[in-house]
C-alpha cells in the first residue's frame, strides 16, 4: 500500500510539475535558511569545544557593584586571587595564570628570527605550564609537558612558526624579542581553532614576568587587574562552592568587587551571569523558526488549495471502502515525503552556498553540516515535525471530502464568510512576511547607524603607532619637524587612544562619601591629545603649557562628571593612588571603545610630551592627504626612533575591525539576505494560492464577463479578499516588530521611524498585488464560453 502512495505522488509530481516545483521550492528555501541559521547558531554554541576538559574549565571573573550603565564585569583580575585565594582549594585541580605580553589591545610586540626582520605580533601571553593541562593544545613539535618549564622558552602557533621560520622547523631556534630578550623555541602547536575564547599566537613562561616587567611582587598584588586565570575543577565538583569561598576575597581592598568562576561553555555566548540570553542566538533562532513557519504555512495553503484535484481519487477510495484513517495516513505520508525531498534540496543549497556566504559576510560564521551529527539529527527531526504538522490540515480537509459531491465533480467550497483556517493561515503568512521585512529594515538601520554615527572624535584622519623604546626625552623636536609639513595638523602621545581600551579603578571626589566610588578608566595624555583627536572641551580648559602645575591636574569626560555627581566639577579634586588631583576640564563624551557599549567615565592625566617606554604616537593629517602624510610620518619617526620597530596605521582600521562593528556588518548583510528570502518565499506561496483561488472562481469570472463586468470590477472581485487579509496582518506585525526593536540591546539606538514600517509593508503588498494581478489578468482573458461550457 505504501508503494501505491509513492506511485501516486511521483506520478502527480510528473503531471503537475509547476505546482510541485512551487511547493518544493518554497519548502526547500525555508529549509535552506533554517539550516544556514542553525549552522550559525551551532557555530556560536560550539566555541571552545575542542578542549577535552570542556565541562570542567572555568575563567576567573569579577563582578563590580557600580552605578547604572557601567560595565560591571571583567575577566582581567588581580594575580593574588589565583596565587593566594584559589590555590589550595579542594575543588580545584589546576590553575593557570596568564598575562599579555606587551598590550594585546595595541599593536603587539616585535619578534625576530634573526635580529634583522621584525614581525609585529599580537596575542602573546605569559603563562604557567599548567595551562596545557587545562586547555587542549595539539603540539606538532616539542614536548608539551616541559614546554614552559625553562626560562626563555617560547612556544609558537604553527602559523607564527611558519611566519618566523618559513623554510625550516622552528623547534630549537632562537627568537629575539624587544629589549634584547632571546627565546628558544621549545614547542610548536596547531593553531587554536577560530571559535576559541583564547587564541595565543605565542606563549612564554610566567616565570619570566618579573624579569621582563619589573613587577616583582605581582603574586601578592590585589590591585593590578591585568591578569587572566583559567581553572580546571576536579570531576564532580561545582563552581558554586568555589564562588562562595572567594566571594569576599577582595573585601580588604575593594569590597564592591566579587570574584566568581564562569564556565568555559558560556564565555562566548553569555560571559556575564546577568544576561540570561544571547541576543544573536535568540534572534536568529526566532527568525529561522519564523521562516520555516512561513514556508510551512505556504505548504499547508498550497496543498489544501490543490485538494480539489484529489476529489476523484479520494471519493473513489471512500466508495470502495477505504477508511478515513487510511486516507489520512496517505496524505501525511505524502507531506512527509515532500518535506524530506525539500529538506534534501535545502541541505544541498545550504552546503553549496555556505562558503560563499561566509565570504559575503566577511566572517566564518557558518560551519557546514559535514560530520556534524547533532545538527543533522536536528535537521531530520525538524523535517519530520514540519512535514507531519504541515500535512495534518490538508490531510484533514482532503480525507473529509464529501464523496457524493466530489463524485459529481462539484467543488466543495469552504464558507466564504466568517472564520476559516485557510484565512487564518494566510493572515499569519502575511503577518510573518511584513514582520520579517520590518525587522530586517530596523536591524539594517540600526547597524548602519552604528557604523556611521558620529564617534565624537576624528576617526578618519589620524595615523597611530605603538612604539616601545628605550629612548628618553620629549617629543618636542619630533613634533616641530612634523608640523613643518602642511600635510600634518597635530601630534600627540598617550598610553591609550580611542578604540584601545585602557584600564581603570574606583575613584571618588575628595570630600564626598568614600563609599560612593565610581569605576573610571584613565589615560595618560600629552598637551595636544584633545586637539589631535578633535575632542571638545565643554567646561573648564584643556591642559596647557602655560600652566606648569597641570602635571597634577586632570580632565574628565561628561559621563565621569555626571556620575561623580557634582554640578560644577571644575576645581574639585579626585583621590588617585594617594595623590590629590584637581579637575580642570570636562571633555564632551566620545565613543571610547565601541558604539555598542555605553560610554564609561574617563579621566586623563598629563604626560607633558614625554617619551615613555611604551606609548602610542598619534598624528592627525590634513583631509585628503593621507598617502603623503603617511610617508612623512614614517620618515620622521624612523629618523627619531632609529633603533625601534613600529608600524603606523589609520585609526579607521581600529574602528572598522572592532568586534561589535564586524559582527554588526555581518548582521546587516544577514538581515538583507533574510529580507530578500522573505519576499521570495511569500511570493512563491502567494503565487500558488492565487493560482488556485482564481481557478475556483473561473465560473464566477465567466458569468460576470458574460454580464458585461469590466476588468476593474473583476479585479476587485478577485483581489478584495486578499487585500482585507493584508490589512489585518499589519495590525499583528507592526506591534511585534516594534517590540523587538525595543528589546534590541546596545547603548546607542537610532530613532525608529514610521517609514520603515510603511515601506516594508508596501513592499509585501506590492509583491502580493503583483502576483495577484498577474494571475487575475490570465484568468480574465479566458473566454466565458469556454468556462461555462465546462460547467
Amino acid at each position, binding site marked *: 500500500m505504501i508503494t501505491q502512495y509513492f506511485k501516486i505522488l511521483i506520478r502527480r509530481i510528473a503531471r503537475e510539475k509547476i505546482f510541485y516545483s512551487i511547493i518544493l521550492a518554497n519548502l526547500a528555501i525555508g529549509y535552506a535558511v533554517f539550516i544556514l541559521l542553525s549552522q550559525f547558531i551551532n557555530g556560536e554554541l560550539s566555541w571552545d569545544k575542542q578542549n577535552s576538559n570542556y565541562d570542567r574549565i572555568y575563567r576567573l571573573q569579577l563582578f563590580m557593584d557600580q552605578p547604572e550603565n557601567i560595565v560591571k564585569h571583567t575577566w582581567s583580575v588581580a594575580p593574588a586571587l589565583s596565587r593566594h585565594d584559589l590555590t589550595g582549594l579542594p575543588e580545584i585541580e589546576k590553575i593557570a595564570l596568564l598575562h599579555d605580553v606587551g598590550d594585546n589591545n595595541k599593536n603587539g610586540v616585535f619578534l625576530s628570527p634573526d635580529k634583522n626582520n621584525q614581525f609585529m605580533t599580537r596575542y602573546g601571553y605569559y603563562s604557567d605550564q599548567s595551562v596545557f593541562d587545562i586547555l587542549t593544545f595539539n603540539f606538532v613539535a616539542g614536548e608539551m609537558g616541559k614546554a614552559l618549564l625553562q626560562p626563555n622558552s617560547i612556544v609558537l602557533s604553527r602559523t607564527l612558526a611558519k611566519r618566523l621560520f618559513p623554510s625550516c622547523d622552528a623547534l630549537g631556534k632562537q627568537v629575539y624579542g624587544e629589549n634584547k630578550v632571546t627565546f628558544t623555541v621549545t614547542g610548536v602547536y596547531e593553531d587554536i581553532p577560530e571559535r576559541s575564547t583564547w587564541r595565543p599566537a605565542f606563549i612564554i613562561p610566567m616565570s619570566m614576568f618579573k624579569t621582563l616587567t619589573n613587577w616583582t611582587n605581582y603574586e601578592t598584588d590585589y590591585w593590578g587587574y591585568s591578569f587572566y586565570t583559567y581553572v580546571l575543577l576536579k570531576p564532580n565538583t561545582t563552581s558554586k562552592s568555589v564562588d562562595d569561598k572567594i566571594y569576599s576575597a577582595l573585601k580588604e581592598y575593594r569590597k564592591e568587587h566579587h570574584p566568581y568562576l564562569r564556565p568555559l561553555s558560556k564565555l562566548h555566548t553569555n560571559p556575564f551571569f546577568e544576561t540570561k540570553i544571547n541576543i544573536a542566538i535568540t534572534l536568529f533562532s526566532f527568525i529561522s523558526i519564523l521562516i520555516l513557519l512561513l514556508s510551512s504555512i505556504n505548504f499547508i495553503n498550497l496543498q489544501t488549495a490543490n485538494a480539489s484535484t484529489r476529489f476523484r481519487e479520494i471519493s473513489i477510495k471512500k466508495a470502495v*471502502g477505504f477508511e478515513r484513517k487510511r486516507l489520512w495516513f496517505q496524505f501525511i505520508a505524502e507531506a512527509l515525503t515532500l518535506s524530506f525531498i525539500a529538506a534534501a534540496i535545502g541541505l544541498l543549497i545550504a552546503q553549496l552556498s555556505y562558503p560563499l556566504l561566509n565570504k559575503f559576510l566577511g566572517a566564518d560564521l557558518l560551519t557546514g553540516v559535514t560530520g556534524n551529527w547533532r545538527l543533522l539529527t536536528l535537521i531530520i527531526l525538524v523535517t519530520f515535525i514540519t512535514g507531519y504538522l504541515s500535512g495534518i490540515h490538508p490531510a484533514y480537509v482532503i480525507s473529509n471530502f464529501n464523496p457524493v459531491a466530489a*463524485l459529481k465533480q462539484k467543488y466543495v467550497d469552504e464558507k466564504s464568510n466568517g472564520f476559516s483556517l485557510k484565512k487564518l493561515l494566510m493572515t499569519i503568512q502575511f503577518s510573518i512576511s511584513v514582520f520579517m521585512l520590518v525587522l530586517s529594515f530596523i536591524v539594517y538601520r540600526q547597524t548602519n547607524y552604528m557604523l556611521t554615527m558620529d564617534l565624537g572624535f576624528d576617526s578618519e584622519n589620524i595615523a597611530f603607532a605603538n612604539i616601545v623604546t628605550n629612548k628618553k626625552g620629549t617629543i618636542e623636536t619630533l613634533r616641530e619637524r612634523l608640523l613643518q609639513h602642511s600635510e600634518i595638523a597635530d601630534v600627540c602621545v598617550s598610553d591609550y587612544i580611542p578604540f584601545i581600551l585602557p584600564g581603570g579603578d574606583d575613584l571618588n571626589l575628595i570630600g564626598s562619601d568614600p563609599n560612593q566610588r565610581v569605576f573610571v578608566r584613565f589615560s595618560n595624555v600629552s598637551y595636544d591629545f584633545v586637539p589631535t583627536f578633535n575632542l571638545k572641551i565643554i567646561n573648564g580648559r584643556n591642559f596647557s603649557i602655560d600652566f606648569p602645575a597641570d602635571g597634577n591636574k586632570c580632565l574628565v569626560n561628561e559621563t565621569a562628571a555626571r556620575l561623580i555627581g557634582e554640578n560644577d566639577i571644575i576645581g574639585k579634586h579626585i583621590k588617585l593612588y594617594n595623590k590629590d588631583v584637581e579637575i580642570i576640564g570636562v571633555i564632551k563624551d566620545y565613543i571610547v571603545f565601541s558604539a555598542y557599549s555605553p560610554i564609561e567615565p574617563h579621566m586623563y592625566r598629563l604626560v607633558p610630551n614625554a617619551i615613555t617606554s611604551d606609548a602610542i604616537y598619534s598624528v592627525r593629517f590634513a583631509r585628503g592627504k593621507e598617502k603623503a602624510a603617511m610617508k612623512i610620518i614614517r620618515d620622521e619617526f624612523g629618523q627619531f626612533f632609529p633603533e625601534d620597530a613600529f608600524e603606523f596605521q589609520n585609526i579607521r582600521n581600529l574602528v572598522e575591525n572592532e568586534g561589535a562593528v564586524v559582527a554588526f556588518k555581518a548582521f546587516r548583510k544577514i538581515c538583507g539576505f533574510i529580507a530578500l528570502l522573505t519576499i521570495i518565499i511569500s511570493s512563491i506561496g502567494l503565487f500558488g494560492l492565487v493560482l488556485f483561488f482564481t481557478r475556483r472562481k473561473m465560473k464566477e469570472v465567466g458569468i460576470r464577463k458574460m454580464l458585461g463586468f469590466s476588468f476593474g470590477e473583476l479585479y476587485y472581485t478577485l483581489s478584495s479578499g486578499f487585500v482585507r487579509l493584508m490589512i489585518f496582518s499589519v495590525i499583528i506585525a507592526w506591534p511585534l516588530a516594534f517590540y523587538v526593536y525595543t528589546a534590541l540591546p546596545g547603548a546607542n539606538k537610532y530613532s525608529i521611524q514610521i517609514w520603515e514600517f510603511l515601506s516594508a509593508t508596501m513592499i509585501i503588498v506590492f509583491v502580493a498585488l503583483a502576483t495577484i494581478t498577474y494571475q487575475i489578468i490570465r484568468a480574465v482573458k479566458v473566454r466565458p464560453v469556454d468556462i461555462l461550457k465546462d460547467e
Partner: protein
Amino acid sequence: MIRTVNLSKVFKTEMVETTALFNINLEVKKGEFVAIMGPSGCGKSTLLNILGLLDNANSGEYYFDGIEVTGFSERESANLRKGNIGFIFQSFNLIDELNVYENVELPLIALNVPLSNRRNMVGEILEFMSMGHRKNHFPRQLSGGQQQRVAIARALITRPKLILADEPTGNLDSSNGEQVMQMLEQMNSEGTTIVMVTHSADHAERAHRVVHLFDGQMVMERIDKVFEPAL
C-alpha cells in the same frame, strides 16, 4: 436485499431547504435488477447514494441484507461497502494517477487482500472484461467504453452483493452502451443484485422492475420482467 421504510432526505443550506426524497419505500430482492427513472432533479442519484451508504437519510429506515444501517457512521458505512457494494458511475471515475491494473486493484487493497491473490484476481477480471492487454495503460489513454469496462471490473472484483450503477451508459455511444448493458445483465444472471439509475427507457426495460421518481417521491412502479428470486 435492500429495504427502505419512509426514507426521506432534505438538503439544507443557510437559506433554503430542499426535499430530495420523501417517504421512499423501496424493496429490492436479492438477485433483482431494478431500474430507477425520473426527470432531472427528482432524487434518483440521491436515493442511489443513500443505498450505497455514501450519504445518510434524514429520516426513515434502511435495511441492507437484513441489517438496519440507518445512521451508520462513516467508518461503519465504509466497512459495509467493502466487498458488498460496487459502484459504476456515468463519468467512470477512474483515478488518473493509477493505471488500469491499479484502479481495479483498489477494492482488494481496501479489503487487505494479499498481493499474490490480488494479482490473480485482477488478472482474471481484466481478461473477463477484455482489458488485460491494457492493464498498464492510464485512463487518459483509454476510450470511454474502455474506461467504463475498467470501472465495471473495479465494481465486480470483490464479487459484491449489490451493484449500484448511476447512468452507466450516459457518457457512452450506443454501441458501448449496449456492451455495458449486456455486462450488467450477465452479472445479474449470475446473481448480483443491481440497482441502476437511467434516463434511457430502452435500458430500463432490461431490468426486472422500473421505479419512477418525481419530485423525490415514488410515483409508479412497473414490472417488466418476472423476477424469481433464487432459493
